[in-house]
């Protein structure tokens, strides 16, 4: 394998210094809470906290910090905090309540999460997450989140991938919505009380730095284009994931990396950018008009059977293909787990059969998920009771009735495990800049288990940041930020806006985004190769150059201008995409959501390389030159790395 150092250079290792590593893992959080300095109540009122983002992470943080008495200034780009993309999460949220008495415990959740992350996450953080999980459920129930209940009035649980216990709490298929509304309502209570100053439809476009610390943000008021600045004692980013770098993903249209990326340019390291989760059960692309992909709950694989025709190019209708000419490939390759193999394996298997030309539907990018057996076995009524809402959603989108013909599904980008590097306190490498939720890299390693992103977002916001931010504030009395510093940041943003508007080229922003997405999906998607990644880096660079010469952004900067908003986001994706490819290129092992074709065993299973890659890769921005790699070594004291097998 050729050397990738032409694309990056290596720097000092990096380490988390905040977790009390000397204590046993189950005592570290308690210890840390005791060690942190407190801000006395009277002083809290004098401390201003900026929070960017109102999803589960940001919303819960704003509500809690406001309640504690800090002066909070909060932003989101949607027209209401309630619309953050957390709203779309369907399946559920994990918690080690052991209400089923089926052997669950904090330790087991900790164990499952570390293993699920393919041994690429920090044990201290994951353990804390598992500890806090139980408090989250209590908190949400107290707020009135209508979780599913049983006839006895107690909470119901379901099981989810990657776990042998039933620990997932849910609210029909809308768990994210209900949790977010709980956080949103708590946040609005603080808005009403005057503790939180809320700015919806404001997009953060830069970080204001003073004396090496994060001290404020520059935002654009999306309603009227005004560029404004806000300063504070500390800045918290909770801006979600960057899956939209692929153009097509299950993320919302507005999800972006902009806030994180601009912080990255001020010195916040970006960790593990290449770890991408690709979800196997999404509705396939139907044509060039496609703007996003819709997730179909993973639970469908409990009763649906996945198959493709045995012959490549078989274009008969599914009902005309006889049983012995069908290939139920998951059941064939993974007899033990069958259709229920983990997400990454199911996704890759689908890609493989489609690459062989056996895919179905438009463009041959799809496989069947067939319920006819289940309908025969359980009866249509039972299938309806379980899945009717999903079937309806499918029919609405595709116009096909899944009771009569098999669903078509295809994998799609779903979640990004990478994000800004943070320590145990959730502080980035920029002092005074904290990062929560999907925007950080902290808890999921190389692969996230189902129902644990919601848990992480709420743990970060309700329970971690309220403790750790106090330590920073107590130790770092803020000095006034000079007007010139603020003005310089504002000028920088204005300059970028003007630049984008003045190019007046020939191609639309979306066309660049779509092309970038194609490159990323093709070369940095489900399967990555040395050769492909190198090619992709070249293509992205060329595309980026062309973007800055040839993009057209109609309209002006001084009113609502959605093209301009998109242009700024795509500009950042064009830089992030390159870093993702570099990260993927340098990590020559396969692990979790990162599969390198060169690193697989005889059966085509992912091969991890613990000897060389048991670290988190934290990338430093160098002004557009080669990024610098800082490695954080991962130590596994409690969960010993082993190979996953699902055969």
């Amino acid at each position, binding site marked *: 394998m050729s050397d990738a150092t032409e694309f990056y250079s290596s720097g000092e290792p990096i380490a988390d210094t905040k977790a009390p590593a000397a204590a046993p893992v189950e005592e570290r959080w308690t210890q840390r809470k005791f060690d942190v300095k407190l801000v006395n109540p009277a002083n809290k009122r004098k401390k201003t906290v900026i929070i960017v983002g109102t999803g589960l992470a940001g919303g819960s943080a704003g509500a809690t910090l406001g309640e504690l008495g800090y002066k909070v200034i909060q932003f989101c780009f949607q027209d209401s905090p309630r619309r953050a993309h957390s709203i779309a999460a369907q399946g559920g949220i994990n918690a080690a309540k052991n209400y089923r008495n089926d052997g669950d415990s904090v330790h087991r959740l900790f164990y499952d999460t570390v293993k699920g992350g393919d041994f690429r996450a920090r044990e201290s953080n994951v353990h804390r997450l598992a500890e806090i999980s139980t408090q989250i459920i209590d908190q949400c129930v107290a707020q009135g989140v209508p979780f599913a209940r049983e006839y006895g*009035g107690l909470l119901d649980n379901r099981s989810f991938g990657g776990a042998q216990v039933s620990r997932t709490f849910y609210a029909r298929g809308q768990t994210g919505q209900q949790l977010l509304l709980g956080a949103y309502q708590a946040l609005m209570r603080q808005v009403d009380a005057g503790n939180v100053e809320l700015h919806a439809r404001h997009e953060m476009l830069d970080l204001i730095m003073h004396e090496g610390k994060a001290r404020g943000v520059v935002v654009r008021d999306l309603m009227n284009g005004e560029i404004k600045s806000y300063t504070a004692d500390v800045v918290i980013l909770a801006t979600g994931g960057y899956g939209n770098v692929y153009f097509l993903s299950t993320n919302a249209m507005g999800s972006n990396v902009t806030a994180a990326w601009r912080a990255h340019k001020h010195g916040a390291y970006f960790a593990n950018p290449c770890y991408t989760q690709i979800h196997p059960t999404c509705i396939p692309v139907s044509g060039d008009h496609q703007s996003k992909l819709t997730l179909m709950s993973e639970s469908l694989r409990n009763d649906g059977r996945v198959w493709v025709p045995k012959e490549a190019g078989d274009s008969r209708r599914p009902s005309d293909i006889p049983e012995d000419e069908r290939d139920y490939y998951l059941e064939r390759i993974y007899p033990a787990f069958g259709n229920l193999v983990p997400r990454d394996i199911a996704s890759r298997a689908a890609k493989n059969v489609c690459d062989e030309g056996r895919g179905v539907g438009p463009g041959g990018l799809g496989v069947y998920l067939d319920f006819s057996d289940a309908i025969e076995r359980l009866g249509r009524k039972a299938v309806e009771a379980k899945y009717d809402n999903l079937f309806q959603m499918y029919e609405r989108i595709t*116009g096909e009735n899944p009771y009569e013909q098999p669903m078509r599904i295809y994998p799609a980008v779903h979640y990004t495990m990478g994000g800004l590097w943070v320590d145990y306190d959730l502080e980035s490498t920029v002092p005074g800049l904290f990062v929560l939720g999907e925007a950080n890299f902290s808890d999921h390693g190389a692969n996230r288990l189902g129902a644990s992103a919601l848990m992480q977002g709420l743990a970060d916001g309700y329970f971690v940041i309220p403790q750790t931010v106090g330590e920073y504030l107590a130790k770092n009395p803020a000095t006034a930020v000079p007007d010139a510093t603020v003005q310089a940041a504002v000028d920088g943003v204005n300059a970028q806006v003007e630049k984008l508007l003045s190019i007046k080229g020939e191609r639309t922003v979306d066309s660049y985004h779509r092309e970038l997405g194609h490159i990323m999906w093709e070369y940095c998607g489900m399967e990555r190769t040395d050769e492909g990644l190198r090619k992709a880096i070249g293509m992205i660079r060329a595309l980026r150059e062309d973007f800055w010469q040839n993009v057209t952004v109609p309209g002006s900067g001084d009113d609502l201008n959605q093209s301009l908003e998109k242009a700024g986001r795509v500009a950042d994706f064009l830089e992030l995409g390159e870093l993702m490819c570099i990260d993927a290129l340098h990590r020559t092992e396969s692990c979790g959501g990162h599969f390198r074709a060169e690193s697989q065993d005889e059966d085509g299973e992912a091969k991890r390389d613990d000897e060389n890659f048991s670290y988190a890769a934290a990338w430093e921005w160098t002004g557009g030159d080669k990024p610098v790699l800082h490695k954080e070594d991962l130590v596994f004291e409690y969960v010993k790395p082993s190979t996953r097998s699902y055969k």
Partner: protein
Amino acid sequence: MKLKLRIWRQKNAADKGQMVTYDIDDISEDASFLEMLDVLNERLALEGEEPIAFDHDCREGICGMCSLVINGQPHGPERNTTTCQLHMRKFKDGETIDVEPWRAKAFPVVKDLVVDRSAFDKVIAAGGYISAPTGTAPDAHATPVPKVDADKAFVAAECIGCGACVAACPNGSGTLFLSAKVAHLGLLPQGQPERDSRVLNMVQAHEDLDFGGCTNTGECTIACPKGIPQEFIGRMNRDWLSASGK
């Protein structure tokens, strides 16, 4: 498909605005309504014209950001479906389609089809919550909730805050939205301590924010993409009367 679109264009809040006609061709039946607008917007951008502004985010029918009154119906002709989930196969080739923003004083137009719905946030801020300071909660199983109540509360809590109810209501009333939140929290034991103040304050805020009054015409429920039932309005009235009497 070939379509004639008549779309409301309005430069900003101060502009009067008017319907503008666009002809569009080669639209796939499998495209969603918003994807159809994307195609039109790509064309406008290339022609140097400003694309049509419209709100959207998740495109999965859950965030409540998309809006649009299509041929006089909020979220278009398909029941229980948001605009982003509406697909072009529901329209006829050659059809003329009128697209307008939500129209309500409480939701002023920002630009084209984009309106400002922050009034809804203010209604929630007035009392649409349960005061449960972080960290003080008892164990989740401390208070069992009868399944019927929990399920009903869930139905009410499904509201996505899109505002279609206001757009559809002949009185420009947000009562369905308001009542859904009152019912969601009022049905749960955790919501009891603030039940009276919640309904009084929220109803007052709703009135102060220039929403119309409800005369039970029931258009809202039909337009509501989540089918929030009108019965919650009756429930809220009951709560309000009983709270006012105290």
